[in-house]
């Protein structure tokens, strides 16, 4: 396959993935609007414009993480499980399309939806809550937030590889909402009891949020390297778990077809 052809396939598959996701309002609406509604409530209204910008600035970073987390987890976790259940995945596997294009498309879709949420959050923070950041901070924060799709897609992939069909949505929700809360995405982590703060240390969203908060100098003061190391390690673990899941599913379907 020529590189040009390969590129076209990757691009088209990504396009179809985005279009398909858009046509599924059950997914698109909550992942796009929840972070915005949360921000409107906790950042703009509770943040009380003109009194202190500490709150709207802080939650901008954490709801940004929340906004990137949603599309990645749901697109990969629920989407993949669903496509496997309905046979769409099997159908795609029979085409000459490289498996990489399928994964690339899903990552791109998560990235694009994440970017839309981030842009909308930034606009709301700037114009409704009055948040002002240095130019480099706006770009760095956006960059850090969007980079979060990598560990979160890996986590979604792991879930999608093991969970089946409808139960995948439940599993994703069970991971998504508690992780968001325990990682301090809704309320600052230091407001929680110690035990919950210890749990946060194990969660990828916590480390990602800390990196985002570091850009605006509102993080907990732990080292960047530690956060990165945890994120890389967990991403690798998720990928391994996903690979195991696929291997099990393959042998299972082979046995069934026999």
């Amino acid at each position, binding site marked *: 396959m020529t590189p040009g052809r390969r590129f*076209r396939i990757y*691009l*088209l598959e*990504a*396009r179809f993935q985005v279009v398909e996701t858009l046509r599924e309002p059950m997914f698109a609406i909550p992942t796009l609007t929840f972070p915005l509604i949360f921000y409107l409530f906790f950042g703009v209204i509770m943040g*009380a414009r*003109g*009194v*202190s*910008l*500490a*709150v709207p600035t802080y939650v901008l970073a954490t709801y940004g993480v929340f906004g990137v987390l949603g599309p990645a987890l749901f697109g990969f976790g629920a989407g993949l499980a669903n496509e496997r259940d309905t046979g769409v995945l099997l159908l795609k596997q029979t085409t000459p399309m490289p498996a990489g294009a399928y994964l690339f498309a899903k990552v791109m879709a998560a990235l*694009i939806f994440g*970017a839309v949420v981030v*842009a909308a959050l*930034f*606009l709301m923070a*700037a*114009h409704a809550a*009055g*948040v*002002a*950041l*240095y*130019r480099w901070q*706006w*770009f760095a924060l*956006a960059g850090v937030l969007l980079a979060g799709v990598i560990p979160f897609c890996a986590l979604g992939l792991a879930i999608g590889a093991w969970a089946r069909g409808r139960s995948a949505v439940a599993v994703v929700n069970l991971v998504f909402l508690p992780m968001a809360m325990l990682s301090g995405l809704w309320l*600052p*982590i*230091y*407001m*929680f*009891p*110690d035990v919950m*703060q210890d749990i946060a240390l194990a969660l990828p969203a916590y480390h990602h949020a800390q990196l985002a908060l570091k850009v605006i*100098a*509102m993080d*907990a*003061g732990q080292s960047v390297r530690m956060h990165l190391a945890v994120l890389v390690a967990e991403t690798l673990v998720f990928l391994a778990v996903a690979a195991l899941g696929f291997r099990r599913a393959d042998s299972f379907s082979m046995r069934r077809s026999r």
Partner: protein
Amino acid sequence: MKSARHLVGRSLTWLVVGVAIFTGVLATLPVPQAAEGPARGVPEETFAIVDVTAFDGEAFRQGWDVWVEEGRIRHAGPRLDLPDDLPRLDGRGHTLIPGLIDGHVHSFPSTLGDALRFGVTTVLDQSTDPAFAAAVRPAREEVGRGTGADLFSAGMTATAPEGHGTQYGIPVETLTGPDEAAEWVRARKAEGSDWIKIIYEDGSAFDMEIPSLDGETVAAVIEAAHAEGLAAVVHVSTFETALEAMAFGADGLVHVWRDEVVSEADARRFAEADIFVVPTLSVMVPAEDSDVAELVRETDEAMLSAIQRQTLSARFPGGLAEGGDVAMENVRRLRAAGVRLVAGTDSPNPGTGTGISMHGELRLLARAGMGSAEALAAATSVAADAFGVAERGRIAEGHLADLVLARADLEEDVSRSHDIVAIWKDGYLVDRAVASAGAGPGAEIARAPAATLVADFEDGFEASFGAWDVTTDKLTGGSSTANVAVRDGALVVTGEIAPGTAFPWAGVIWMPGEQPMQPVDFSGREATRGDGRQYSVMLISSAEPAGPPPTMTFIAPEEWTQVEIRLEDFPTATPEVIAGLAFVAEGPVGTFTFEVDEVEVR
């Protein structure tokens, strides 16, 4: 395959458009004002404005270059030989005028900044709290970045017990007879009064009866002022008292009268006596008949402080007395007779706004027959000469670089004076966005002392004014702790942030007021700085009675570093009113240590 190609193209287009929009959004998001700096391409401190129409204080000069060096005008004239590396601003099409001088104001902490934002770089105050004047006067001697107009002031005014001038709640020592005049003037001189202001007002022009000094006492005060080498100006509101004041030898009148139209012959007598008049048409002509409303409409609201908006919309109780037309006619006739006229607004009286009304006064003077150059001279060089204010009011060698660059050709139309490209005070660009606003609710607002150094911790935990204390979130039910110690000439703050409240904090607070948390007005002060280290530190300023205080954050690295925070950057309506400045650690939970040294509020 054709349709697939088509889709590939469309997808790529979408991708590119999406990335462009995303980048565009990020590139246009707001940034903190301080980060952009006041410059925006306009030079300051040492620079030249080239090929500009300059009004030098007397006449318009075409094609001038004005060379500013370290806050003063080094040279001004046609086609100067300027160094190649000198930053320059092309002035073509614009008009450069000296910073305006308002010949009749009353000053409060917020008014100096309000004046400066509208190009009034010097105010001639005709009575205020002498302690305030004494605290602010020294700033006029400093050439450097400031946030207020230079103040020259009569300080306390001479009036009778219960007389006009005693009703404003500022301290006034009244006079009861001519024998007290000499001692009273000496006391003013000792307080630093730049000239003597006398009230000669019995209220008859306003159908009121107000106790007034008698003519003898007015004459005695004028004489005593001259004996002390001070000029004496008189507040009058009737033609009769104006004639008397002239006969007593007053140097100037700080209002025109509106009870009677002056005859041409009498107008000539004023000219011959060489007495100057500050007509203050802004408070003679009802605001509805002046152009003030139009000026406000054409002014970016962000430039008007809360106090300016309030005084502009206020009206004299019962409305202005009749006679605006008479006042205008008197100005016309005095001008025709050659009497020196000084532009002044009597702001912030009802219907005026400090600074902005100066542009209304220029319009009124033009309406009374003055040409552009004449009106601008009344607001610059004539005012400076009348009150003996040096180095101001002219674009001339050695003068302070107090400059206003007007967008339009003012020679043609002086009513465009409010359309300003840039204002420089002492060569430094003036930030035109509002920094000042009104008083915080409730508490009486004290005035800030002139000193800027709050504490250097060389001799312990003492502040040079105000007081330091520990502050923690116990106020809101938290349990964080802080301890302070002075070690090696620095304030060492240690403590622990504990969970238990929404936004925990602990640290030290400096309260400038005499009572704890009494708000103090710091308008005109630019920044505070602390040397902090080792931990993330937050700074809190508060005039609000409730809610979390406005906060600015900065990072304190291991090594000593100077941190400068602009008061006006605080997200609050009243950044110049400070009840307390706190240096605290906030979340996350844990212990902290930081050190503070050399705290200054400027």
